[in-house]
């Protein structure tokens, strides 16, 4: 019974977030434009027409995603805290698990939607076929999940501080170092057409990271969600 409720409540929160975003499309569209902007600005690093751009494509893709993701996470949590929505949610008999998981999965949906548009545009701009290797989908899924999981946790924390905009990247980026490095290295290896055994360790690292921090988040998020 209780388990069923958690699932139902989680889906209700995801639906709320997705519907809200669908009406305005404010956050996702601004995230997309910002991500593209990062890609364009980063392309000034190298001379046009050089192969250099293929060598660092993975880095540019993930940095653009992380920067726009930071903005999106901050905004998504701001809409919860500024209008007192989170307080209202906590007053209802909704379980905290459902609130946390709901936020994680709605953020995950936004990040996937963002990449569904960004990835083809990136392929055009950088002339690299990121999806030539189907394992890239696994890297995208696992890395985005890890980013969103800790991102949701830290954005909940950061939204209650006096300097929330700067606090989120300050807390999140150092902790994300392992999966960012792994995602960039794996992507670069795939762009360079390396065989699977060359980069499988990076995928393993991301998966291990995801498992460890899923377990830890489920243990520690309770005091973070409560008021």
């Amino acid at each position, binding site marked *: 019974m209780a388990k069923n409720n958690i699932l139902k409540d989680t889906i209700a929160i995801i639906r709320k977030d997705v519907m809200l975003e669908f009406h305005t499309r404010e956050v996702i569209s601004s995230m997309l434009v910002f991500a593209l902007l990062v890609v364009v600005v980063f392309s000034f690093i190298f001379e046009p027409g050089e192969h250099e751009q293929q060598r660092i494509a993975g880095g540019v893709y993930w940095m653009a995603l992380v920067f726009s993701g930071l903005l999106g996470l901050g905004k998504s949590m701001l809409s919860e805290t500024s209008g007192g929505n989170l307080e209202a949610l906590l007053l209802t008999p909704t379980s905290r698990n459902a609130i946390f998981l709901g936020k994680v999965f709605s953020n995950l949906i936004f990040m996937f939607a963002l990449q569904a548009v960004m990835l083809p545009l990136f392929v055009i701009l950088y002339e690299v076929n990121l999806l030539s290797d189907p394992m890239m989908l696994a890297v995208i899924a696992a890395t985005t999940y890890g980013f969103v999981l800790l991102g949701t946790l830290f954005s909940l924390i950061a939204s209650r501080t006096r300097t929330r905009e700067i606090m989120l990247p300050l807390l999140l980026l*150092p902790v994300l*170092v*392992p999966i960012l490095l792994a995602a960039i290295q794996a992507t670069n290896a795939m762009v360079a057409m390396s065989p699977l055994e060359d980069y499988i360790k990076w995928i393993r690292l991301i998966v291990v990271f995801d498992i460890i921090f899923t377990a830890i988040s489920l243990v520690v998020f309770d*005091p973070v969600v409560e008021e």
Partner: protein
Amino acid sequence: MLKSKLFFVIDVLAIVMIPVALWFAFFYAPLELRMGAIQKIFYFHVASAWVGFAALFVTFVCSIIFLIKRNHFSDDLAAASAGIGLLFCTVVLMTGPLWARPTWGVWWTWDPRLTTTLILWFIYAGYVFLRKFIDDPDKRGKYCAVLGIIGFFDVPIVFLSIRFWRTIHPNVVQSGGGGLHPDMRTAMFVALGAFTLLYISLANKRVRLAKLEREYYTAE
């Protein structure tokens, strides 16, 4: 009463042991053949690194205790330990390049140990900032405890990831001293002991200060 006496003894020992460690490093330990006097930095570098990393463990344990018991002491000690950890991490990151420049020819290299220490520094810095920017003591304790726990699990994964990354490239710098002269080892352990005493002494002062501050503000 007994506790304050014990800490007084530790304070005095810390003050005495630092010059003793200096004496051991400069007069007792032999001069390194190839590196010369610059190698003396090693004793304080290693001792600071030990305290810098051990402090994270103390913060981690205290964070767990705080989340379960919600007592002031564990929060105070976690905060004190993170603050001192940041200090000693800074010392490691300053003494390292001073030694690396004449020895390796570069100030910095993206070696697993160096990079992990740098990331640890950022985690400590985030922790210290987070404490500053939350006014409500209960929230501050909870959020910082979560960061303390996540940081502790993150640091080994950071180390692992950087090691993966660097093994693709030729390893320019072989870290680890290998065969250390017995007298050098003695000097190193004296420095380790001295810095550990310093850590305990500083942590005790910060915990007491936090307690006094709280008493002052609640009395008002």
